[in-house]
Each structure stands twice: as structure tokens, then as C-alpha cells.
């Protein structure tokens, strides 16, 4: 009975994908897409209450439970957003019905892949799932078939598949490390048994493995210098996909990275993964913060801001300790909610103004107040200003770091400040000043955007104790 929930989380999207692949017609398929996503979300919710025991292939524990719910939730809201968004794309003829079917099917496949990656109890399976997710997104990024879109997809594909290869090599190495201890066969890839006996593994092998996994999955996370695919993929794909990429796929990849970090942390002789993650995190943060200043394309802008926040999160987990880990988890959640909300806003803005060029959109709060203020609120949230949730996580990261590693904290603060400066500099152009640029009428559903922002705002001042205890437990696990 309880196992069904986990299976359902995987089966519903698959079935939906199959149906959607057949289904012609925008209206029906869009509705079905939403319904399927909702169903997945509800089943995921049920996982909170009856949690199945870990199997050979699938498991649900504190760490991934929150992420599953988060993923399915954002998947659901994004499907709502994409319904209105894709509708407009059809009207403007940027998408043909044929590609539309493909799009919806792929959307559900992507959901399936990400859920699988999260519930997988088997590092091989997790790898497969993440690759599947990558390949689906590659196809979706290229869906517009413009020069830029194809190029972005191509770049994403090449860099992504190199990442795939490296991650696989890492996975193999982990197996090699586990084999002598656990013995040959499937067990040596089952997560629960791995983490249980990690202390006896060969540290050197683990280290090499982690290097490969860090680079492999780090490519998906978009850590500098592996980030190159991310901005273009976000900018050129359909906005719902950008939202899912930033909000979910990055999280999933980071989740995989965390799993292996736990593995290393469990082995006393292995190298501490912290410094690596801290370094890459800070690099990503500072680099992305400065990249924000020169962006002309609004979606690319927020893609870089995603890199920045992934940097902060990686930094937090790299620092470790209950506070920093808690902050990292919180920041992951907050960022995926906020960033997807921002992309909802940006998507509609781009449709209204008929362009993604920042220079060509202006005075949004005048011309489209709801949209404009939504965007402002989103940027305020992503900039880490209170009373929104991101502030709490940044507060925890900075305060807990400064007492331990003053210089790191100062670099961190410097990066954050540079990012804030850039974001608001760009925001001034988009949201304020004399309204200019085209002003087409786009029927938009603001519900998802404001739902996300409301959640973030609430989390900024109040968090339900259950969630907190989960986070705290996981934070302890992460060491």
C-alpha cells in the first residue's frame, strides 16, 4: 500500500507522458498536463504521512522527501503557468501543434526523471534518471529551432554529455570502492547499504570518485567553471522549461552531489569535500554576480542569478555544520520557489513586451502593475532582502560562517552585495521609469507566481515546525 505512493509518483508522469504524446489539440493536453502534475503532487504529499521502507531501488527518507514534494509542487505550478504561456506561444505561432504534443510529453518525462532521481536508492539508477532529465531538457531547449535555440541546445548537449560521462565514471569508482567491502552485485550500489558501511571503503578511490562526481553533477548544478550551458539553455528555451531548469533540475543535481558528500563525510580517511565545494561555490557566486551587470537578455540575467545562488548553496553545504547545512537546505527550497516565480513573471513580461531584451522593456510597474510588482517582489526575494525566506538562509550562512572563517564570509558578503547591486540596476530599467516598449495583451495566470512568492514570504517569518525538524535532521546527516 505504502509502496504505491512512491511508485505512483513515478508512474503517473510516465502514463501522462504516453497519453500526451498521442493527444492532439492544445486545450485538452494542457489541462491533462496540469491534472497529471497535480496528481503527482498530491501523491508526493501523501509521502509525508506514510513513508515506505527503503527498497533495493527506491527509498524515501528525510532528505529527499522534502525535495520530492517541492519538485512535484513546482512542477504542478509550472504546468499551470505553462498552460497560459504555451497558449500564447501558439497564437503567436512560435510553436506548432506537432511540437506542442512533443513538449507536453517531454514535460511529463522530465517530471518522471527528476522524481526518479530523487527517490532512487541506487546510485546507478540515480545516474540514469539524471541523464534522462538532462536529455529531455536538451530536446526542450532546442524546441524553438531558432539559431540561438539550436546552438544553446547543442552546447548544453555537448557539455551535458561530458558531464554524464564524468558522473558515470565517478559512479563506477564508487562501486569499485564499495565492492571489496560489501561484495559484488547490486548491493554495492544500493544507497542505504553504501552509507552504512562507507567508513570501510578505500578513501583514495572515494576521493577520485568524488572529483568525478563533483565535476559531473556539478555541470548540472552549473557551478563555475562548468556553468557555460546554463545561461543559454535558460535564455533560449521556453520559459516554463527555464523555470523548471532553475527551480528543479539544479536542485536535483545538487541533491545527488549531497548524497555523495554524505558518503565521503562518513569516511574518516577520505578528503573533506567541504573545501572543494566552498571554493567552487565562492567562484560561482562572485563570477555570476559580476556577470549580472552586463546582461542584456532578461532570462539570461536570471539564469546567472541561479548560478550565483547555486554558489551560495554549495558554499553553505561546503561549510557544513548544523546551521550552515540548515541554511543550505532552506536556501535550496527558497531559491527554487523564488526563481521559478521570477521566470513566470519574466515569461509573461517577455510575451507582453514581445522581447527578452532588457533595454526594450521598461516601466513595467506602470504598464502592467500586477506583473511589474510581482517581478519586483521576486527580485527583492532573490536578492535576499527581508522579510522573505532567502534572507533567513543568507542570514544563517553569513553569521555562522563569519565566526569560523571571517575571510570566506567577507568574500561571500562581497559577492552577495555585488549581486544585489546588479539585480536592482537591471530591475530599475525593467520595472521603473517611463514605460516604453511594446505592450501586447497576453492572458496570463498570475496565480502560480504569487503562490510561490506568498510561500517564500511566509517562510521568511514563520516555518512550520515539522519542516524545521526535517531540515534539522537532514542537516545533522550532512554533517
Amino acid at each position: 500500500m505504502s509502496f504505491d505512493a512512491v511508485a505512483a509518483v513515478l508512474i503517473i508522469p510516465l502514463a501522462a507522458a504516453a497519453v500526451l504524446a498521442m493527444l492532439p489539440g492544445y486545450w485538452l493536453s494542457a489541462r491533462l498536463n496540469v491534472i497529471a502534475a497535480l496528481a503527482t503532487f498530491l501523491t508526493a504529499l501523501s509521502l509525508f504521512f506514510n513513508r515506505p521502507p527503503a527498497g533495493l531501488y527506491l527509498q524515501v527518507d528525510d532528505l529527499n522527501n522534502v525535495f520530492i514534494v517541492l519538485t512535484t509542487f513546482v512542477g504542478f505550478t509550472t504546468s499551470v503557468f505553462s498552460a497560459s504561456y504555451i497558449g500564447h506561444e501558439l497564437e503567436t505561432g512560435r510553436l506548432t501543434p506537432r511540437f506542442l504534443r512533443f513538449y507536453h510529453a517531454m514535460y511529463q518525462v522530465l517530471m518522471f526523471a527528476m522524481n526518479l532521481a530523487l527517490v532512487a536508492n541506487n546510485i546507478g539508477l540515480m545516474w540514469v534518471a539524471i541523464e534522462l532529465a538532462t536529455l529531455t531538457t536538451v530536446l526542450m531547449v532546442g524546441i524553438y529551432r531558432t539559431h540561438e535555440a539550436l546552438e544553446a541546445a547543442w552546447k548544453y548537449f555537448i557539455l551535458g554529455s561530458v558531464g554524464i560521462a564524468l558522473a558515470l565514471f565517478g559512479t563506477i569508482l564508487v562501486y569499485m570502492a564499495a565492492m571489496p567491502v560489501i561484495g559484488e552485485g547490486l548491493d554495492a550500489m544500493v544507497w542505504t547499504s553504501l552509507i552504512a558501511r562507507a567508513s570501510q571503503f578505500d578513501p583514495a578511490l572515494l576521493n577520485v570518485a568524488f572529483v568525478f562526481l563533483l565535476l559531473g553533477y556539478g555541470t548540472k548544478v552549473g557551478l563555475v567553471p562548468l556553468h557555460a550551458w546554463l545561461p543559454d539553455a535558460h535564455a533560449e528555451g521556453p520559459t516554463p522549461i527555464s523555470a523548471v531548469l532553475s527551480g528543479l533540475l539544479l536542485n536535483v543535481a545538487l541533491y545527488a552531489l549531497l548524497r555523495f558528500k554524505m558518503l565521503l563525510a562518513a569516511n574518516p580517511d577520505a578528503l573533506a569535500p567541504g573545501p572543494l565545494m566552498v571554493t567552487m561555490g565562492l567562484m560561482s557566486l562572485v563570477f555570476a554576480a559580476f556577470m549580472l551587470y552586463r546582461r542584456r537578455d532578461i532570462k539570461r540575467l536570471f539564469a546567472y542569478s541561479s548560478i550565483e545562488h547555486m554558489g551560495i548553496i554549495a558554499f553553505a553545504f561546503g561549510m557544513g555544520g548544523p546551521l550552515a547545512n540548515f541554511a543550505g537546505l532552506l536556501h535550496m527550497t527558497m531559491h527554487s520557489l523564488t526563481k521559478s516565480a521570477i521566470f513566470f513573471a519574466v515569461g509573461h513580461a517577455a510575451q507582453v513586451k514581445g522581447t527578452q531584451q532588457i533595454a526594450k522593456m521598461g516601466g513595467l510597474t506602470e504598464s502592467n502593475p500586477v506583473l511589474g510588482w510581482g517581478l519586483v517582489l521576486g527580485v527583492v526575494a532573490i536578492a535576499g532582502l527581508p522579510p522573505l525566506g532567502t534572507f533567513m538562509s543568507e542570514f544563517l550562512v553569513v553569521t555562522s560562517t563569519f565566526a569560523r572563517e571571517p575571510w570566506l564570509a567577507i568574500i561571500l558578503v562581497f559577492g552577495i552585495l555585488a549581486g544585489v547591486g546588479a539585480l536592482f540596476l537591471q530591475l530599475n530599467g525593467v520595472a521603473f521609469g517611463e514605460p516604453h516598449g511594446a505592450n501586447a495583451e497576453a492572458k496570463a495566470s498570475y496565480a502560480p507566481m504569487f503562490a510561490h512568492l506568498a510561500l517564500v514570504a511566509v517562510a521568511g517569518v514563520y516555518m512550520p515546525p515539522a519542516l524545521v525538524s526535517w531540515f534539522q535532521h537532514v542537516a545533522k546527516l550532512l554533517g
Partner: protein
Amino acid sequence: MTLALVLGCAGLLLGVAVLAVAIGRSAAATPVVYGLCLVASLVSCAIGVQHLLAGSAPLSRVLPLGVPWLGAHFRLDALSAYFLAVVGLGSFAASLFALGHGEHEEAPGRVLPFYPAFLAAMILVLVADDAFTFLVSWEFMSLTSWALVMAHHRNPDNVRAAYVYLVMAGFGTLALLLAFGLMAGPDGGYAFMEIRNAHASAGLGALVLILALIGAGSKAGLVPLHAWLPLAHPAAPSQVSALMSGVMTKVAIYGFVRIIFDLIGPPAWWWSMLVLALGGVTAVMGVLYALMQHDLKRLLAYHTVENIGIIFIGLGLALAFKAHGMPLAAALAMTAALLHVLNHSLFKSLLFFGAGAVLTATGERDMERLGGLIRLMPQTAFAFLVGCAAISALPPLNGFVSEWLTFQAILLSPRLPSWGLRLLVPAVGAMLALSAALAAACFVKAFGVTFQGRPRSPAAERARETDRLSLAAMFLLAVLCLIVGVTPGLFIDALAPVVHAAVGARMPAQLGVPWLSIVPIAESRSSYNGLLVFLFMVISGTLAASAIHRLASDRLRRAPAWDCGYPDPSPLTEYTASSFAQPIRRVFGTVVFHARERVEMPTPGDIRPARLSVSLHDVVWEALYKPVTSAVNFAADRLNALQFLTIRQFLSLVFGALVILLGALTIWP
């Protein structure tokens, strides 16, 4: 209970903010919103006063908000209560003013929602009792005020001002974040109680002091972190300018006092040198900047900088005395600083209201296009004049009292054992005196050019007296200025618990002193009686006037101005603000601002007019902010090149990372 009421006020205000979003469009929105704000701020002010006068014990309570395992701690002690009273009073006056003035607002939808939220944030900062709650409220305060500065966003200058403000605010908040991180320690003892109990080491304290100076100083407008202030304060609607200048800067002061005098524990003597030097420089620089301005609201904003400097001088002295175990002297200095907090909030709000009234009546902020308003808006002019006299520290008004107390504190400083302070303090005293004199000069200019003389533009000729409620707000503050000026003893006594909590001693009780005069240390040493001086002046003035009118002539004839025989009716011949400031510009400006004057005198027979052009340089901006911005741009440009690599080059980045990491592994033990 009381604390709950305060939190209730904040909650109400937040609710009002939401309400404002809902009904922002309707015409009833303005009176409703400001009315509710009026009530809430009055209540919170009353609570503050009551708590202060009753001298009741600190109240605290914890709500299940904020950092989950910690909760949101709130506490109302003497310090919070005093600042709560100041803030409540300021926001009360501002709301009253806004009730009338708000009708002229062209974009109410962009002001109404943020105004109450801004008030709520300031109240919450004052009662916050853990680092997280404090910083959330603090930054929320910046955020809401940023939105208010952005209210008139169609003017690019305002957008820029708001941007600079937000970045500086973020900078300050991050500095405070680091400070609290330092005090809370790695395992996050964020509650102020824990911070108090954990005694910081000296070096740590010093770091915290510097961070607090950056954090609170940038919010308060301490030179050289003041750059945003004269841009942002004038850009906002006038009631908000008044709040930001008169009230929000005080919240910043509160933050500094809270951290340095309460949380961090016993100070080291040299901290005070830093604070004193900064305070002195701020005071002088602020007023000099102000003298160079001819934008009325910006001039007032720069004067805020000056007064912040004066307050910090007081705080620095208190710190010095406290560090050297001279509690009585410390109490005197602290009282001076805190009293000046109240005074400045009073007259600065008053002045901004006046400027706002002028702005709505004429649509002009540029003094060079104003003039003669005293005849068109006499009541506003009178209130504004009182404000000018008060801020220029003229007896018997309130500004003089706090400066007088500061001087008295300075005169106690020879007893300080440390040499550095002995040399620094007199210099700071001179700076204080200089800034006071210059302030008087500046407000002669402000009032004389704006309200006196003849109108310099048609807009100024068409000016009409402003509405009743705005006037009521102004006169309320003017009367308060006089009351504080003539009966300072009452306020000093009210401050006693606050001062005692901060420096461990209090000034001698002033109520016992006959004739309501104030005696800082001993009557033989020094004393001042505002009431008597006031009465003297009134009596002797009226005496002289009536006597002359009765015994000698009271005949009067209107005639053209004499002006040494060749009067010129055109307002062009009037003295302008910049020409008024010219002597002082030549004396100080040449050094401080590299002020240069160039005269193009055409050759005889040439009919071109002669031209005088003045060039000023904002030294601080060019020395501090320009380099930062250019550095950021440089970095952005350089890094931006990385956006344009080919896929292969990106791959080689990945490859390089892999090789480097593997290499690192080989050398890793």
C-alpha cells in the same frame, strides 16, 4: 501587555499596508490609511512615554516567528521606550501632515502601501530582541523606504537615488550581519540576552565597533557613508523625507547605541576616538555640503548629516567617559546625545514639512526660483522660522539645550587620563562650534532666500498658504521645540533611566532645581534656564516696543526700497542662494570642495554679458565611490568576455578543472 500593544500597533500598521494595496485606487484611501497610521503611531508614542516615565522594568516576550528554534524575541526596555516615543511622535506628526499633504500626491498608489509598512518596520526594530528579528526589521525598514523613494520613479534622478540608497543600505545591513555573526558566535546565540552574557574579547569588540559604525553609520549618514542620504531623502514625498531624516536616522542611532552601549560590553578607551573623529568630521562636512546646496530639501538632508555628527560626538564622549570609569560625565554626554536625538527629530521633521508645503505650493525645490513666500504663506513661514532658529541652536529653543549640554560634557574631558583624547576633544569642540555657527549661516540663507525678499519666479508669486492639517502638524512641532527649549529639565529627568542603563549613572535630578533651570554637574559650575531667558526676551522686547510706540512715534509709511538710492524692481538683482554662500564658499569651499570661480569678462565694447561660473567637487564621492563603481565596471567587463567563449573553450575549462583536481589529489596526503 504594553509590549503586546506595541506589537499590536506594528501588526495594525502592516495590516493597513495590505489594506492600502486593496483600496489604493479609491479616493478614501489617503485619509483612511494616514488616519490609521496616526492612531497607531500615537499609541506607540504614548506607550513609550508611559513606560519611560513609569520607569517600569523591561518587558519581553517571544513569538513563534523568525529563526524557528529561536523564535522572535521582543523586548521593551528604557532605551527602546525612549526611541519608541521619539519614533512614535515623529510618525504621528508625519501622518498628521500627510493627512492634509497627501491629497496633493500624484501617485498615492505607490506611497500608501509602503508608508505604514515603513512605520511598522521602524517600531519593530526598536523592540526586536534577537539578531534575526532586528536585522529583518532593519532591512525591511530600508526596503520600504526604498520603495517610497522610488514613488516618483518617472524622474530618473529619483531612480538613481533609490538605487544608491538600496545598495548602501544593503552594504550597511551586511556589515551589521557580520557584526552579529561575530557576537553570536559559530553556534548561533542570536538572542540579545545570550550576546550580552557572552563577553566579547577586546579585538572582537573593536571589529564589532567598526562594523557597527559601518552598518548603523551608513544608515544614519555618517561621513563618508552619507552619500546616499542627500539623494534619497529629498526624492521621497515630503512626509516620508521628514520620516527618513527625522526618524529613521534615529533608529540607526538606536542600533548603534544598542550594540555599543548594551550588547558588546565594556568599551576600550580608543573606540571613542574613532567615534569622536567621525562625529566631528561629519558635523562640519555635513553643514558645509548644506551651505553649497540651493535645493531646499537636499539642504535639509545635508543638515541631517550634520546633526548626526553632533549626536555621534555626544556618543563618543559618553564612550570615552564610560571607558575611563567616569559615569557622571558619561551620563551628561549621553543625555546630551539622546536629547539631541529628540530635538533633531522635532525640528528636522518640521523643516521638511515646511519644505513640502513650499514644494506643493510652488512646485519648486530650487531656492533660486523661490522667494517672498513669507507674505503668501505667512503661517508656514513662521513655523519654518521657528524650525530654523531651533536647528541653528539659538536660545531659548531646544537645539541650543542639547548643544549646550554637549559643550558642558566636552568641558569635563580634561579629566580624561588618555592623551589622545585630551588632544582630540578640544578639536572636536572647535568643530562643533564651527558647525553650529555655519548652521546658523546656512539657515539664514535657507529662510532668507526661500521666504524673504521678492519672488524670483512666477511659480513663487502664485504660491498659496498650505492646508490646515499640514499647518497643524508644523505648529505642533514648533510648540514642542519651544517646550523642550524652555523646560529641558523635565526631559533630562525622563531620560535618566535610559542613560543609567547605557552608562551606569544618571545626571542629577533637575526637578529639584528652582525656576526649572538645568544644572549638569553643580550650580557653581554651570547652569542654564531656558524659561527665564525666554521670559526675559519676551518682556524686554515687548517692553521696548510698547514704550517706543507709546512715548515716541508709531507712524509708518510704505515706500519703495531705499537700496542706497538706486533700487531695481527686477528680482534678478536680489541676492541668490549661491551668491549668499559665496563668501563662505571662498573661505571653506576652496579647501573642502576645490571650489573654483571663473569669471569671463568680455572686452570693453563687447556686448556679451559677463559670466561667473562656479565649479565644486564632491571630494568624498570622487575619492570613495567613483573608484568602487569603476572597479565594479572593470571587473564586469573583463569577466563578461567569458560569456563569449566557444563550446570547445568551455570544454577545455571543464577539462582544466578535472586535471587540476586530479593533480591536487596526487599531492593530497
